[in-house]
């Protein structure tokens, strides 16, 4: 087992997710929220995970840290090249155990969507940043304060000494998000998971935060998993993009390639429904009909079938497409784009 795991991680890959599935038990049955997600992130790279609400992008990221609710049952592989342990499958670790604690917050850390909610109103910002420092780096109070202040300055919090002793309610949204980033970066993580870090912010503040994240990435040399529904933000931030729909990655490609040649009908629809300033006003925005179905007792076939403009009856509603490489690191899961060899689909149907 150990041998298998080691072979899975190449030198420049930080994390590799294979066939991640997350089921949630609810009253009505089992919700298959994530249905076989595959992706990997290289050193120093930013991967954008894009999708609409309910597509499973947040669950995927929380599974990496093992912080999903107990009701969520995850299976598959999340191979992370952890310091001191070598490549491990994070899903094998006890979510309350010592091993995952040495990874969580130190080697992989996370920024959340709503900075107002992510901080406790009862403690000063300094205390909360220090928590990570004291847990992972040093027990020395003075030294940890010094480290925390340094990071606060790095993320652009002016007057850090004064701010250190203030409470979250004394911070504006943009400043709080900076503090949250400081908290995430204080241990110099290898991987930063940013879950919609700028969605709650104004455009001008969003631009500031994105700029800082880019700079810090250069400084710290970390990889970023950037989760968002905003295709504009992704275009400016990410090296590669993975598009998720209904618990699966349906298309992944380098950012420039994806925006220039989107192939999956869902990606095309998503890009078409965003109006680009400066382009001629079409009479109507392209829109994908219908809504995302609930991932409860899903029928066989492609999850996008009901809303797809290119669906092939008898194929797309009978078999689930897998990610197929179409060259240039561009992968898609769509029968209409890649064709569906008969032999292969028969074989899968038997399974």
């Amino acid at each position, binding site marked *: 087992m150990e041998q298998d795991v080691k072979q899975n991680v190449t030198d420049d890959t930080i994390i590799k997710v294979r066939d991640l599935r997350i089921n949630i038990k609810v009253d009505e049955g089992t919700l298959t929220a994530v249905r076989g997600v595959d992706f990997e992130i290289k050193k120093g790279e930013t991967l954008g995970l894009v999708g*609409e*609400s309910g597509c499973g992008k947040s669950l995927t990221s929380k599974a990496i840290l093992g912080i999903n609710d107990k009701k969520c049952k995850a299976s598959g592989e999340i191979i992370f090249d952890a310091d001191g342990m070598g490549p491990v499958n994070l899903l094998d670790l006890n979510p309350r155990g010592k091993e995952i604690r040495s990874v969580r917050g130190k080697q992989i850390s996370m920024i959340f969507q709503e900075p107002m909610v992510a901080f406790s109103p009862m403690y000063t910002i300094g205390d909360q940043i220090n928590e990570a420092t004291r847990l992972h780096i040093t027990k020395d109070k003075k030294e940890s304060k010094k480290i925390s202040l340094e990071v606060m300055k790095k993320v652009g919090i002016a007057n850090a000494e004064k701010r250190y002793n203030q409470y979250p309610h004394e911070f*504006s949204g*943009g*400043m709080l998000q900076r503090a949250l980033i400081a908290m995430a970066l204080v241990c110099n993580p290898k991987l930063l998971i940013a879950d919609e870090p700028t969605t709650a912010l*104004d*455009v*001008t*503040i*969003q*631009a*500031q935060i994105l*700029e800082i994240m880019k700079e810090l990435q250069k400084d710290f040399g970390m990889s970023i998993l950037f989760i968002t*529904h*905003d*295709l*504009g*933000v*992704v*275009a*400016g931030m990410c090296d590669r993009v993975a598009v998720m729909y209904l618990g699966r990655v349906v298309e992944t490609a380098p*950012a*420039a390639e994806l*925006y*220039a040649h989107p192939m999956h009908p869902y990606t095309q*629809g*998503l*890009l*078409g*429904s*965003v*109006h*680009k*300033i*400066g*382009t*001629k*006003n079409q009479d*109507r*925005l*392209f*829109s*994908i*009909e219908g*809504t*995302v179905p609930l991932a409860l007792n899903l029928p066989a076939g492609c999850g996008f079938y009901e809303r797809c403009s290119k669906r092939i009856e008898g194929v797309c509603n009978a078999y689930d497409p897998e990610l197929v490489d179409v060259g240039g690191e561009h992968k898609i899961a769509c029968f209409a784009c890649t064709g569906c060899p008969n032999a292969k689909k028969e074989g899968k149907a038997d399974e």
Partner: protein
Amino acid sequence: MSKGDNILDVKNIKMDFASKGVTVHAVGDVSFKVNEGETMGIVGESGCGKTTLGRCIVRAYEPTAGQVMYTTSEGELIDFLKIDKKTMKEYRKEIQMIFQDPYSSLDPRMTVLDIIKEPLLANYPHMPKEEMERKVMDIAAKVGLNTAYLKRYPHAFSGGQRQRIGIARALVLNPRIIVCDEAVSALDVSIQAQVINLLHDLQKEFDLTFLFISHDLSVVEYISDRVGVMYLGKMVEFAPTKKLFSHPMHPYTESLLSAVPVADPTKQMERIPLEGEIPNPANPPSGCYFHTRCRYCTERCEKEAPEYVEAEPEHYVACHRAKELKLKGFSYDE
């Protein structure tokens, strides 16, 4: 009255909120005109007063000062802020609102049918029940709701469908003006496109005038004929959409435009970062409110507040240096 005529003339609206001895000037001296059948967009960061302005116009708030001149369908001119509440109720049928959050703006204990019917009950209490229900059915079908589901409660509907319910509720009284306060901001992109298309179709069909308040510049650019930019309670620039986006004349508009994320990695604009954050509206800076964050700031800007003038035909701006500055906007392909 015909299309293109003035339907709403907002003059020097002021709204102060006083609390604990502090007065917050949420909206200070805003004036603009809205033409019948057009969509007017209002953009700005959170806290700039755009929602307050929208609410002042429908008189959900009582503005501290100013006039909202409304031209009735008979061509009569009335001031919304002068008439008494009872008369206002008559006219409020003609100016309706769509709210941002489709979750909190619908009563969870009312069926969708009742929600859409409520404005009719309030305004036409003597209308026969059958007629009322027929009207509700008609409008629900128009906005793309399945009429078989109208007896259900809001929780059974998705975000996009709830927003359609909100739109139906606003439309059932046959209004002339609709104030859309962040009407699509809470929706996913693919659903957002559906709702924007719907608003577009409804506007054509019913000759509606929209006042479209949003922080999303791409959406505003798509839907609006003219756009006003607000900063700290004041209108700083106002122009036809294309003009504003291609040739902004106010430095704030310039940085706002440069901060818009563009969904194309090859077309990234040079960011003009805004330093700092929006100042406290209870204690605004001296002179031009924007001078603390403006990179073109001069001594004059710190002392003297610029006037809001028509610098170019149909292009209003409040900046001392509007004419000399060459500011960057989006380039439009023809």
